[in-house]
């Protein structure tokens, strides 16, 4: 009672001052907590493409920096064939020699070769000498002659690559190009990194290959192949990887013919597909990248078994604007552009 009496006798001004102070302190604490649990997003260029990060949870800026450093490492230390002394550069520089590489690089290459085997070589990371000829998006982009392609095609043979836990050997005349799976592999590494941070959830795009991380549900737009700034539909997804291969991303037109960047490794030419794009959803970034390329080249019917082997799902968009969706995604897909038609 004595305490209450003393408090009761306090000057009202003091009471107001105390109330204001408590309110401010609570406000600052709440504001700080909200700030820490809010979203941090940024966009930059890395791995020769646009990278967008949206991180939810505390320390977003610091964690985003770690992610960007991780992407940089994936490119410069492991997978880029243009970075001097990356694992892939060293492999390409020494055909016929068992080159020591990181365990991660060896695993990425082994996984890529396994996909090549299952899709009968239409996707093949030994296509390096031929992608150099085309140089899509590069300084020397051009239509190569038939002779140039014929000369190099015999060396595009995934079965000639030997991989152990820490070494990779390519055959004479071969060179690796991991461009088709590099962005997805980067997403795999980012997932491992994020699991060691305090990030609650995240959605990360490395050139359109996506990592969806954490418990949050995300709405993912599928690019309209005829107008790449807009989506034609969306998928409701949580914690997974998404990748799209389309004929609209990198291409050039010569003699009124469009040459896109998705090369059929068995011919050395852009895949002659009835499709405009394929979006693949599965539990690996590397596989979603590799499968979207393979499925684009093989077409709808021939891709279904390949997808089921990897427990992957896909959305196929045909040139006539028909959309075919595998069973596992049908109830997750929403069509937003009525000019497309979803086939039953």
């Amino acid at each position, binding site marked *: 009672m004595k305490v209450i009496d003393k408090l009761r006798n306090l000057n009202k001004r003091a009471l107001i001052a105390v109330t204001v102070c408590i309110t401010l302190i609570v406000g600052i604490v709440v504001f700080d907590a909200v700030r820490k649990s809010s979203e941090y997003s940024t966009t930059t*260029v890395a791995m020769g493409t646009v990278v967008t990060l949206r991180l939810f949870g505390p320390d977003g800026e610091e964690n985003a920096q770690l992610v960007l450093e991780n992407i940089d490492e994936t490119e410069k230390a492991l997978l880029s064939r243009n970075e001097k002394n990356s694992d892939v550069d060293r492999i390409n520089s020494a055909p016929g020699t068992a080159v020591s590489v990181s365990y991660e690089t060896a695993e990425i290459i082994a996984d890529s070769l396994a996909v090549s085997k299952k899709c009968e070589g239409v996707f093949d990371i030994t296509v390096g000498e031929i992608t150099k000829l085309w140089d899509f998006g590069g300084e020397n982009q051009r239509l190569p002659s038939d002779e140039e392609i014929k000369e190099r095609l015999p060396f595009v043979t995934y079965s000639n690559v030997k991989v152990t836990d820490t070494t990779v050997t390519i055959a004479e005349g071969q060179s690796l190009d991991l461009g088709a799976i590099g962005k997805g592999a980067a997403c795999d590494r980012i997932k491992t990194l994020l699991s060691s941070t305090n990030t609650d959830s995240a959605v990360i795009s490395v050139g359109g290959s996506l990592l969806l991380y954490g418990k949050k549900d995300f709405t993912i737009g599928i690019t309209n192949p005829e107008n790449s700034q807009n989506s034609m539909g969306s998928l409701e997804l949580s914690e997974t990887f998404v990748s799209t291969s389309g004929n609209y991303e990198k291409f050039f037109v010569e003699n009124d013919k469009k040459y896109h960047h998705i090369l059929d490794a068995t011919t050395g030419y852009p895949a002659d597909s009835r499709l405009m794009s394929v979006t693949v959803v599965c539990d690996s970034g590397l596989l979603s990248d590799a499968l979207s390329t393979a499925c684009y080249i093989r077409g709808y019917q021939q891709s279904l078994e390949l997808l089921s082997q990897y427990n992957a799902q896909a959305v196929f968009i045909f040139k006539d604007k028909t959309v075919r969706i595998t069973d596992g995604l049908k109830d997750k897909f929403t069509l937003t552009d009525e000019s497309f038609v979803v086939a039953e």
Partner: protein
Amino acid sequence: MRKLFRRADIIIIIAVLFLSFLLFIPNLFNNDSLVASVYVDGEQTEEINLDKVEGDYAFSPKKGTVISVKKGAICFSEATCRDKICVDSGWLTAKGQTSACLPERVVITINGTDKTDMMTY
């Protein structure tokens, strides 16, 4: 038993709490603007509220690229790179849209998201 606070004291406390809540209101309602960010070499160099643009203008965020701005829209209007994909992608007019000049490492993005959290392409 005597009360610690009188009615007037409680009214003052509630009033202070209410006023402090009012301070947060602007943060709750400022997400509707169309704001574009320009990134050069990974660093944000410009933030433009496209709703408040008065008169068309253009600027060069980096040698080799020119960005044009008008009310509600922004785009790459010139680029010295060979493929011109950034210029061909046209005006960005909606949240979440992005255009990039990869050779020059310049990215324009309209902040926020419309109906999707991210696009796959």
